[in-house]
């Protein structure tokens, strides 16, 4: 069983070892997460008006605020690892190697489980990168409290759930569409359409259910961090009261995607 697992990992490693696109996308993802945060940091630090020598947005990149600022900013770039997931998975359909791997002796479960594990591994890797980015910015800026506690670090976990949710959606679209360009198009289009529905539904029709749509529910795990001092305590406690529900529904979505992806790949013609 153990050797079968390492054998499967080896095959996946052989697939990407000499694949230039994979490494470029990985480096772009790894570079853009801290770089994008630096751009925002630079903007809040230098481009906004100051009050009493401090930015009007406070110190969003100092401890402990950085634990929510960096995950929030990084959440805007989830499309980068999603492109990687879509590229790798649709390659198997384009080259018809998803069939060949099965013909050569893998079970369908083995094939799809390793893809799900890859998504998990990528999510963990990007989450670690985001956590390290938090630490770096925290130490680079004026530090208010170095020692993190759960109330701060939980946003790293929320980011993990948000990213996993987005990447599972990307994997699901890739499985159903099977073509790289079209899958990416649908992924982006869905992001836009859902945001449109959320904004219209919430602001115009005052509907609460839009908060629980597949992407919005995990977006709401990390609220907009800038100008937090301007939020009322009622607004903050409203979010605190709902966060467990957002988290539960987000995890439920992820489990549903995993269940459907497994079922679809195992039961249908390849």
């Amino acid at each position, binding site marked *: 069983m153990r050797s079968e697992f390492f*054998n499967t990992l080896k095959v996946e490693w*052989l697939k990407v070892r000499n694949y230039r696109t994979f490494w470029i996308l990985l480096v772009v993802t790894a570079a853009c997460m801290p770089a994008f945060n630096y751009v925002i940091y630079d903007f809040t630090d230098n481009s906004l008006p100051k009050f009493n020598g401090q930015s009007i947005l406070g110190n969003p990149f100092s401890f402990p605020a950085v634990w929510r600022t960096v995950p929030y900013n990084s959440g805007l770039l989830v499309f980068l690892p999603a492109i990687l997931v879509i590229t790798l998975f649709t390659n198997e359909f384009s*080259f018809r190697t998803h069939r060949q791997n099965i*013909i050569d*002796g893998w079970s369908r479960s083995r094939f799809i489980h390793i893809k799900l594990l890859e998504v998990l591994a990528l999510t963990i890797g990007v989450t670690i990168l985001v956590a390290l980015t938090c630490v770096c910015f925290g130490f680079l800026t004026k530090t208010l409290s170095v020692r993190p506690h759960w109330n701060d670090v939980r946003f790293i976990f929320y980011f993990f759930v948000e990213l996993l949710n987005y990447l599972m959606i990307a994997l699901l679209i890739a499985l159903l569409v099977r073509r790289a360009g079209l899958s990416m198009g649908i992924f982006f289009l869905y992001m836009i359409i859902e945001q449109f529905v959320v904004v219209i539904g919430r602001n115009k029709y005052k509907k609460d259910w839009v908060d629980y749509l597949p992407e919005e529910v995990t977006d709401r795990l990390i609220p907009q961090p800038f100008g937090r001092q301007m939020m009322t305590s009622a607004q903050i406690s409203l979010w605190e009261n709902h966060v467990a529900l957002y988290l539960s529904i987000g995890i439920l979505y992820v489990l549903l995607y995993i269940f459907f992806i497994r079922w679809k790949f195992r039961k249908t013609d390849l």
Partner: protein
Amino acid sequence: MSAILSLDKISKHFGSVKALREVSFEVPEGSVFGILGPNGSGKTTLLGIVTDVLRASGGHFLWFGQKPSGDHRKQIGSLLETPNFYHYLSARRNLEITAVIKDKPKGDIDRVLKLLKLYERRDSKFQTYSLGMKQRLAIAGCLLGNPPVLVFDEPTNGLDPSGIAEIRELIIELSQQGKTIILASHLLAEVEKVCTHVAILQQGVLIRSGSVASALNQEEWLEVSATDLQALHSLLSRLDKVEKILPAGEFLRVFPKEGLTTVMLNRLCFENGIILSHLRLKKSSLETAFIELTKPGGN
């Protein structure tokens, strides 16, 4: 001979289209088993089912007398439809992936590349290969680890005449090594040269299966000629052991009843003062027999 593959009432529907209808046959160990049929008859669908890329709508099948599994497929070298490899990887890297999936030693990669004449281009990317080279690489992948069973779906696709002849020789050689080869093809002249057994499909229905001789019931006749063709025709038409005579240009086709041999016919003509200038036993080609079987009302 035990059965390597047993099919029991395999059916496959694609929506309202019935691609296979309760197909049952057995592939004996050590045979070269041809699956024949016109385009769209269900050959590739059938092979897709036994290699687990398609789900049967009904029936079941056994590999090596057991419920099929991934471990069985590792013992089978399969080429289904098109060569499926990672375009951005070299031939060697692609076969490395195949070897790891099949639990076969990497040391065998060079052997199969040399066998299929791809060794010199082993480090070229798959996307730079010609169609024929891609097909040869797929066959090389099938031969990795020297599996006892091979499944080839149109293995000569994209090959030039010399490539086709090489693959034919390879199949004969592999068969002589005792391997079981399942071969789907519409190139009947090629199949005729290598197959010991056949299954014939038409619109998803199995119309015959068994050894080539028993399944196809190929017709035999004697082709004869003499200086005076009319005298020869007149003599032969008086013989009880002759079923019918058909003129064929400068020859006569004599369809014998049971028991008439070339020796007997030659002697008979000689004793009646006719010297044969041509005498040959001929058999209808697989193509002719196949067309006979698959024409409406032919089976």
